[in-house]
């Protein structure tokens, strides 16, 4: 056969294959997340695995800093060309659902989620009884402390009560070494509000009760006063507490470098601690939130994340997106009966929320660091998911930061927080 004939045959074969290739990638969907490049790489690998079984679906992953995630969803989610799938924080769901930016889950997906996830997590992914997302991670707050600093300060065990907590914070403070006893966080709403809320619920209080702000309770007053005491005594230094748009920054650096004795943080920062501390990560231990004078036992705040689908995306894209998410979160996609999503989450130290994933990762969840979080999960209180929740959270952040920097007294902070929350939640409910 001459070269000319071979060329003609190759061209003909190419032309025949071309439409098939075009059909093979006929649905393009995109996944918006705030994860780091390493984690995005794991998600991309999972997406490629899915595309092997579904050659007609191509999935691209796009990451933005956490601080830009909601804005990106809001500004691009209203268009069919926006991200098809988005990873969201449960607090954002009521307003995204109200504005019809996220699509309700198909019946089959909803039925699967309702049977395979704990009821509380399903409820956080639902609005008015309609499920909008597939839950993936659950985060809970606990007290992290540096065992080496505890030993140096002569503290034998983590504090169980606020009295012990204040005592330990004082002993761990060493201004000459630039060391603070307890690390607060500022310039990041969840980082400011969640630790405060964890102390509040451990003191028998609530942020919101029956849909109305409950920051005027005596329990809340005691929690504001605790913050004021820690700042005034110098056991907590707000200048060491700053966070940046990627939820890292000085607050993390100071704990990693052994300049913060205790901090209240969520389980997901395990990977950041390991990266920053190396072998010294073994010095970090986890304990329940100390119980306040009005509390009965340790409680903390939990919240969840979920993946949602863009309601404005085309029908084929939405269908492909739900299929991908159902596969990604199913026991078929990961290792040893775990979902691929849970494998990705566990690589960051994040607790998966699907019941079968918790079972599949039982060994890793029993590590010294994570077991402390798993143990407090049962008594954790979900962060209130209400319309206006993000604005409420940012407003409380401002008030708590003003208290951290001594701009307001605990009493005024409590009054301001309650007044602002009332006005925000009332407006959002209209």
């Amino acid at each position: 056969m001459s070269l000319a004939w071979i060329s003609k045959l190759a061209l003909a074969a190419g032309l025949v294959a071309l439409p098939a290739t075009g059909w093979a990638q006929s649905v393009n969907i995109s996944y918006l997340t705030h994860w780091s490049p390493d984690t995005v790489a794991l998600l991309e690998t999972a997406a490629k695995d899915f595309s092997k079984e579904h050659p007609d679906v191509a999935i691209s992953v796009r990451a933005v800093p956490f601080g830009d995630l909601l804005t990106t969803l809001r500004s691009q989610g209203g268009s069919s060309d926006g991200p098809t799938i988005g990873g969201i924080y449960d607090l954002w769901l009521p307003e995204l659902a109200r504005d019809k930016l996220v699509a309700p889950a198909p019946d089959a997906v909803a039925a699967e989620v309702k049977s395979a996830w704990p009821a509380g997590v399903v409820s956080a992914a639902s609005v008015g009884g309609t499920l909008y997302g597939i839950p993936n991670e659950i985060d809970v707050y606990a007290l992290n402390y540096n065992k080496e600093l505890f030993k140096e300060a002569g503290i034998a065990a983590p504090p169980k009560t606020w009295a012990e907590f204040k005592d330990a914070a004082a002993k761990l403070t060493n201004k000459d070494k630039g060391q603070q006893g307890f690390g607060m966080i500022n310039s990041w709403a969840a980082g400011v509000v969640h630790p405060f809320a964890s102390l509040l619920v451990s003191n028998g209080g609530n942020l919101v009760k029956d849909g109305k702000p409950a920051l005027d309770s005596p329990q809340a007053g005691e929690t504001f006063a605790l913050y004021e005491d820690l700042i005034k005594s110098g056991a907590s230094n707000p200048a060491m507490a700053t966070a940046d748009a990627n939820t890292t920054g000085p607050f993390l650096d100071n704990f990693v470098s052994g300049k913060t004795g205790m901090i209240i943080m969520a389980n997901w920062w395990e990977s950041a601690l390991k990266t920053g501390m190396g072998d010294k990560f073994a010095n970090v231990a986890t304990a329940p939130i100390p119980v306040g004078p009005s509390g009965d036992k340790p409680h903390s705040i939990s919240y969840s994340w979920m993946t949602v689908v863009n309601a404005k995306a085309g029908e084929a894209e939405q269908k492909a997106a739900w299929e991908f998410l159902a596969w990604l979160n199913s026991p078929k996609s990961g290792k040893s009966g775990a979902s691929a999503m849970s494998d990705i989450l566990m690589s960051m130290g994040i607790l998966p929320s699907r019941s079968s994933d918790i079972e599949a990762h039982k060994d890793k969840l029993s590590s010294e660091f994570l077991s402390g979080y798993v143990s407090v999960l049962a008594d954790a209180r979900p962060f209130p998911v209400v319309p206006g929740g993000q604005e409420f959270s940012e407003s409380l952040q401002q008030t708590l930061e003003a208290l951290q920097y001594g701009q307001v007294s605990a009493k005024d902070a409590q009054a301001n927080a309650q007044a602002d929350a009332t006005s925000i939640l009332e407006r959002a409910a209209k």
Partner: protein
Amino acid sequence: MAKAFRASAGILLAPAVTLIGVFVVVPMLLTIWLSFQDWSTQTPFSDASFTGLGNFREIFGPTSVGRDFKTALLNTAIYTALSVVLILPLSVVFGLMVYQREVAGGTALRTVLFSTYMVPMIAVALVWSKLYAPSEGPLNQLLGLIGIGPQPWLSSPRSALVSIVFLNVWQQVGYFTVLAIAGLTQIPGSLYEAATLDGANGREQFRFISLPLLRRTLLFSAVIAIINAVQVFEPVALITQGGPVGSTNVLTYHIRRVGIERAQGGLGSAMAVMLMLSLIVSVSALFAFVNRKDSE
């Protein structure tokens, strides 16, 4: 003849006027209209409902909405004033240094000064956030060498905004130096020669020749510096997120939070209108001040 001229002028101007109308005037009018509406940015314009001055009452009211807006407005004003007050004199000083022919390395200095303006803000923000790091940051380490204790920089509400201003001045001063040099080149050399013959020293030449004749250049620089400063967004979004305690929460960042993140389009538009009005008033006042000086 005049009629034909007007017709052809109209035809020639039409494309530019149409483009300006569509892309500048219509969005401005739309923003003004939306500032009187209760509207979510996630809904069509047809869903907007008229609220009169409700949005303006709210942004100047006593609630958290009003408090945050007033803080952001004040932060923007302080940031703008400090930026202009630092950039303009520095640009004249650097311009004079570079313009003096007898100064060795003048071209190199000009290049170095202008190069900061060409660095993308994302790189500037990353570098400066590390320079300002409280414990291991180079700035505090340098201060430590001369016996000054560590400064909180971005970690304190008292110094965070000023720290962002320094970053802005560092990046922008090169551009304004080039403008100052352009102004200096317009001043006839014969004026300096005459002044030298009359016995005027360098300081007197600067005060009575350079500075008065640089007035128009400085006015232009001031207007551009004000507009640039009022539009500050990237360093706040990338480094401080408006904190701590809202001390770096400037209006552009706050409008983005209210208008896009919270989808409160009516409130965000009211804030944008106030920003536009503030800018118009500031620039008009500056022109009026300079024109009065000119007529004097």
